[in-house]
């Protein structure tokens, strides 16, 4: 494999890792606050549809992104209502939201555009353009560093850079601010937070809201950055891979970056090479497809370092009277 091929694969890794990363960080906020969210998939899907639909009708990609975030936030509100206000089962609520998104997107797409559950292809202004970083062209001729800078680091859409910037931001918010401390506390020992006179409900709704915004960005990137338009089921299990990455990362931001890059790399390899010939034997493409899930099961089983979720995760908080 020469440098050019490597750069191409890594470039595609970055593109494919971005939606995973945004969704993974979304789940991180929610689960750190004690709200399990297996509805990441559904939030991304509905955001993908509304961002593409609104970007198409307004011609502005940023208005599309806002619409995607709004749609994802609406789903978050239902999840919050079910799992915080009415103390329902968070997992069941997540499952329901995934189906809701899967059904509604096709239903509305068919009603608005009559193209069999997809949006029309987005014209140039309605999708993200690639950003060329300064000096990318002039540095291209520098050996090794030049192509890496010009082809790998430069030339992505705005949401890719936003996604990667979210990692240090998430770390800073969670581990260096008062809000972050409280948010983590509410996922470990909500009764302690309550005793300190801070609203458990408020904190958890805030976390679920942040989760909605980030999932909205992830979905919008799928429909307006990675591809030009919405097609049915376009998330294709990415919400679940993000969930897997979150466990793989043991609910920590920098590890999440690593896990998402790894899973993005696996997807990039599976896209580029169908079956990988290792000489002695051939690795079929299905193994690459299944690898993120297999790795997650191995991690969950605790054979390679134990993944311990936030202690109060999944438990509705009932105030003592």
């Amino acid at each position, binding site marked *: 494999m020469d440098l050019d091929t490597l750069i191409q694969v890594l470039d595609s890794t970055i593109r494919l890792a971005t939606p995973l990363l945004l969704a993974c960080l979304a789940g991180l906020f929610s689960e750190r606050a004690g709200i399990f969210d297996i509805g990441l998939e559904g939030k991304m899907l509905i955001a993908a549809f509304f961002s593409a639909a609104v970007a198409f009708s307004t011609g502005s990609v940023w208005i599309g992104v806002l619409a995607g975030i709004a749609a994802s936030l609406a789903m978050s509100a239902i999840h919050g209502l079910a799992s915080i206000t009415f103390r329902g089962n968070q997992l069941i609520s997540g499952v329901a939201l995934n189906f809701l998104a899967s059904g509604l997107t096709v239903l509305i797409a068919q009603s608005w555009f009559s193209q069999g559950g997809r949006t029309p292809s987005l014209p140039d202004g309605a999708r993200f353009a690639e950003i060329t970083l300064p000096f990318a062209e002039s540095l291209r001729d520098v050996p090794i560093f030049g192509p890496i800078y010009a082809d790998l680091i430069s030339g992505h859409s705005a949401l890719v850079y936003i996604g990667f910037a979210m990692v240090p931001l998430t770390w800073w918010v969670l581990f260096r601010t008062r809000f972050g401390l409280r948010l983590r506390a509410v996922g470990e020992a909500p009764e302690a937070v309550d005793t300190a006179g801070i609203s458990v409900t408020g904190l958890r709704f805030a976390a679920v809201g942040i989760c909605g915004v980030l999932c909205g960005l992830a979905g919008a990137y799928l429909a307006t950055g990675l591809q030009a338009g919405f097609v049915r089921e376009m998330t294709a299990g990415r919400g679940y891979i993000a969930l897997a990455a979150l466990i793989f990362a043991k609910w920590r931001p920098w590890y999440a970056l690593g896990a998402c890059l790894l899973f993005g790399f696996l997807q990039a390899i599976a896209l580029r090479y169908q079956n990988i010939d290792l000489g002695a034997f051939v690795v079929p493409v299905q193994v690459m497809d299944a690898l993120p899930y297999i790795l997650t099961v191995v991690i*969950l089983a605790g054979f390679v370092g134990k993944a311990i*979720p936030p202690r109060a995760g999944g438990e509705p908080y009932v105030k003592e009277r």
Partner: protein
Amino acid sequence: MDRMPAWADAILVPLFSIVLAAILSAGVILAIGESPVEAFKLMVDGALMRSSGWGYTLYYATNFIFTGLAVSIAFHARMFNIGGEGQAMIGGLGVALVCLFIPWPHWSLALLGATVGAALFGAAWAYIPALLQAKRGSHIVITTIMFNFIAAAVLNYVLVNMLRPTGAMEPATARFPEATFLPTFQDMFATADNPLFRGAPANVTFFIALLACVAVWILIWRTRLGYEIRAFGHSETAARYAGISPVKITVVAMLISGGLAGMMALNTTMGEAERLVLNATEGAGFIGIAVALMGRSHPVGVLLAALLFGFLYQGGAELALWTNIPRELITVIQALVILFTGALDNMVRVPLEKLFLAIRRSPKSAG
């Protein structure tokens, strides 16, 4: 004292949830510019007014009975088996192997063999997540989700690289031998002058599904194992104190659950397609969640809920055929049912409980 009589809990709460889901669905149909009343009429016409419509409704219901029972058993042990879909896929593999590689003399024997194959393969696919939950404490919801995806990859690999007949393009097995074809309702009930169930895929598997309902009822409420499963589901600590092994119950409940989910493949793979195709399950594993929640994890409830979803499925297909409403409407209804009967249960239950409390109090204040 119970806040609400048992019948209200078993009937009123699900009924209210369905009504809420129906109202919202009607709103969705209105919003996309169609008439809910017309849509409902079309669904009833297509699913219930002709015997062939019933043939489809019962065919879908058969799938949902199996997957609904599968989720229910796990619910009784307070586990959420989201992996019905993957277990049914692998169950299909079991059916295909039994039908393709054993020369059966008669369909009845083939059905017995395939039932064992489906249940064993489905149970095997539930075994690893169960063991990981019981021994290593990995969350069963996450592992079963992951196993759904792994099952899809496994099935894809087996169909493309191993079971696909040479020269065929489609990832599917060869057709099963004719001796394994199951009698359809048309074969069983239609006569020369009364052609019932024409062309409908409902088949003898439906009766196996009914038997499974009875068997699950006996298991849960009339056997020691069922008692242990329920005790474990109510309180793990109490069950442990009573000498019930958590590892055993977790694994056994999941094995039964996986076996039931796998048996769904009898209906789709052996009864209908007569070969194993890539997407044989069509999401029925997930509908089992809605069915179990709505049926309150009771076999009778599961049967009724499965019939309702069978009707919705067949009616939805009719809608997609005659109107501009795509089949995904059913996915929305399914989502709403899961939301109201599962996650927003308290929203429906608490007002009802208050109502019953008020009714109970009023005679006292009068007297």
